């Protein structure tokens, strides 16, 4: 039996960054808002010392992440293969619970470059149409960098980002990223303190003629009160950041910022343990009437009617719900028609390690975003003609932590066990410098999401199926930029240099790479080619808005959440100032 609840103005599915921002913005506007979250509430006590400093529990057994015994996805590299379930987490770690992945993220918070927002035009203009590989679905974003700038700014101030501006209103700033788009003002907080690795990376990349800048961080470099009056503490460089909740309240996370700010409004209510199983549509399929959910505590089923449905269930959850509910036409790679599931992208990431006999890095003193970056090889900041691929990467030093189960390295040639292994581990743990290459990834015709024909989740619903592989473009990018990073490491004069291991097809779902899954319900100008319009409103069911990196037409060489936050504020603004006055499609086709 289903209990039908009282109608509300807005129902939000998922309570991470996107859901929290929407809850705050729309309840501020006076609407009655209900936030449904499949996972548990979070309390401060849960993240207290010493219990939170448990690498096994949080970083190996994955306590804060999605529980794949209830719902997972199936995976294959190409359509000709049989997809099989991801039986354990690996390549990416979606969140679950109030605050979503924002609880246990690193906090590396970027803006995309202006080129990223107009990628197809930029590539065609500079290199010509024939430069674009045949199956690459390259598109301009449907909003420009300049349009999004105030919303990037808003997210950065709410999240208290520590960083150094590189371009304020067109004037290049010493010590910042000279390649970035113009911003209205400085970051709200100064950069974090550098580690030894940061200093070495800065010195060497300066010498090589590159332009290092401190990585923008949602780890507070000083105590901070955000524009909503929410107080955050000072980062302790504890090295238990990504995969963990922050004991010091120093990592901007939705459960300590936007969600409590929204909860000040009596017209917002938050329901944890509520698993949304579908968006209900009116008989004509053109209007959503609300959502159905199951209490994971009691198994009871509820129907929550609402005038407006906002999906904030992470890209995967959003696309899954759209496919399950019949919102938009599923993408078919063979005929290249349909839009839902199209444009799934990931990150082409590699790691470089260098070992220094005489340097003490104290790796356990680190923070989720601590490091120094160069953007000289990101976006279209360099000439792609000679290298023959599209895209780029941020290349950076990483001082994230030295948790010994996962964060230790030994020079190449070391045996994997025994006394020699032990000697090398003892010798090099404190003497390893870590660098990463975070490469972009372009949409490709045969990389997509749809419903699996065989496997089901705990609610009896089909799992989502991922078909994904690295392309020639990815391999070229990774070969070139991993070499650049390797050369930077060599220029530092290490005792030993780790191996050069660029990404190659086939992509594997086993080793962790990043939780930067994008696309699947992309935003665009053309309803035949995109699931969402430029306000992240469904073209097909206009009282459904879909927030998250699923809207990205491609994944850039940056972490996504700066742009995800900006897009959410941008869409919330459109709902408040445009949609509410005249509910219906914000753009006509």
């Amino acid at each position, binding site marked *: 039996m289903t209990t039908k609840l009282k109608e509300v103005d807005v129902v939000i599915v998922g309570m991470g960054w996107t859901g929290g921002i929407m809850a705050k913005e729309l309840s501020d506007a006076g609407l009655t808002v209900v936030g449904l979250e499949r996972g548990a509430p979070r309390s401060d006590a849960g993240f207290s010392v*010493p219990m939170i400093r448990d690498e096994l529990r949080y970083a190996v057994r994955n306590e804060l992440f999605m529980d794949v*015994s209830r719902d997972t996805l199936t995976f294959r590299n190409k359509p000709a293969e049989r997809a099989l379930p*991801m039986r354990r987490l690996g390549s990416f770690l979606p969140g679950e619970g109030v605050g979503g992945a924002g609880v246990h993220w690193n906090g590396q918070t970027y803006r995309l470059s202006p080129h990223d927002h107009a990628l197809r035009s930029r590539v065609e203009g500079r290199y010509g149409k024939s430069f674009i590989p045949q199956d690459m679905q390259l598109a301009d974003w449907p909003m420009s960098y300049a349009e999004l700038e105030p919303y990037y700014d808003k997210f950065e101030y709410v999240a208290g980002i520590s960083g150094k501006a590189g371009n304020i209103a067109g004037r290049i700033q010493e010590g910042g990223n000279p390649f970035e788009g113009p911003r209205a003002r400085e970051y709200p907080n100064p950069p974090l303190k550098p580690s030894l690795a940061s200093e070495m990376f800065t010195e060497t990349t300066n010498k090589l003629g590159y332009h290092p800048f401190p990585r923008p961080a949602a780890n507070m470099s000083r105590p901070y009160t955000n524009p909503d009056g929410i107080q955050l503490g000072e980062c302790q460089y504890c090295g*238990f950041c990504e995969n963990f909740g922050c004991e010091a309240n120093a990592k901007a996370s939705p459960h300590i910022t936007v969600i409590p700010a929204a909860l000040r409004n009596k017209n917002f209510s938050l329901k944890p343990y509520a698993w949304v199983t579908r968006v209900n549509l009116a008989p004509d399929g053109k209007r959503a009437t609300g959502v159905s959910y199951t209490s994971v505590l009691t198994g009871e089923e509820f129907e929550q009617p609402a005038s407006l449905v906002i999906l904030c269930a992470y890209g995967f959850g959003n696309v899954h719900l759209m496919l399950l509910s019949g919102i938009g036409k599923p993408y078919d790679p063979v005929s290249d028609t349909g839009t839902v599931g199209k444009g799934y992208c990931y990150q082409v990431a590699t790691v470089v390690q260098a070992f220094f006999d005489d340097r003490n890095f104290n790796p356990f*003193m680190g923070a989720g975003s601590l490091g120094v970056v160069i953007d000289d090889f990101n976006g279209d900041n360099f000439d792609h003609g000679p290298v023959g691929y599209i895209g780029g990467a941020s290349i950076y030093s990483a001082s994230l932590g030295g948790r*010994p189960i996962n964060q230790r390295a030994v020079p190449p040639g070391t045996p994997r066990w025994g006394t020699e292994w032990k000697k090398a581990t003892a010798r090099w743990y404190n003497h390893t410098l870590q660098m990463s290459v975070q490469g972009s990834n372009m949409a490709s015709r045969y990389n997509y999401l749809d419903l699996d024909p065989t496997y089901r989740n705990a609610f009896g619903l089909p799992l989502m199926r991922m078909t994904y592989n690295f392309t020639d473009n990815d391999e070229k990018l990774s070969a070139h930029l991993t070499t650049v990073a390797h050369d930077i490491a060599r220029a530092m004069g290490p005792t030993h240099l780790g191996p050069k291991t660029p990404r190659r097809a086939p992509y594997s779902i086993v080793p962790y790479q990043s939780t930067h899954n994008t696309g699947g319900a992309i935003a665009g100008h053309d309803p035949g080619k995109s699931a969402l319009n430029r306000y992240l409103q469904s073209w097909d069911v206009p009282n459904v808005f879909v927030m998250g990196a699923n809207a990205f037409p491609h994944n850039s060489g940056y972490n996504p959440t700066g742009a995800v936050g900006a897009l959410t504020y941008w869409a919330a603004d459109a709902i408040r100032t445009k949609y509410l006055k005249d509910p219906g499609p914000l753009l006509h086709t």
Partner: protein
Amino acid sequence: MVDIARRDVLTMAGAVGVGVAIPVSSAAAEAPPAAARSYQFFDLNEVAFIEAFVDHLIPADDLTPSGTELGISIYIDRQLAGAWGRGARMYLLGPWAAGTAQQGYQLPLPPADLYRCAIRAVEAHCAAVHGASFDRLQPAQRQQIVQALSEGRLPLQEVPAQAFFDMAYANVMEGLFADPIYGGNKNKQGWKLVGFPGVIAAHAENIEHFRGKPYPVEPLGIADLS
């Protein structure tokens, strides 16, 4: 190490009904109480295997006592006896197919069952090829077996060698480096090996003061602060 094989000791201990609080080496001065040394999951043959396996990967030397003395076999035993061993947070529904390496773990077995089957299969192999159980092989023979396991080359009945080795290797590293509350990393000797300070991690000042300098502290674990 004692001369008699561990299994015989255990059998003797079992016979006199005193649990298994058997001193295993000179480090016995610091031996934990009997309950902490008793196995919950492994049977006697499996104990012989897992202790020999753990000690092969983490031998006693100038740097640390043996893996068994560090509690790593107890750590693995506890993990297998608990929720993780039974397949918590795994999708275990069928149908099953072998799949590609990129598709990851596809066996219908939760970790505890994988260990049980794999140990039986490795022992069958050792018996057939060397005429002795794994714990009674010469070190060089043991190395051969472990090497072959690690490369997925050991022909095992029923289960893939690679899947078992990958899991067991990861578990040994966990047992060496996880917080001592889980039974391994005894006296924080895994942390001392590398110089990891443990759970006290307020480094806002240290990151400047100790930049580039050694930071020698006695590590602390969860139990030291609770």
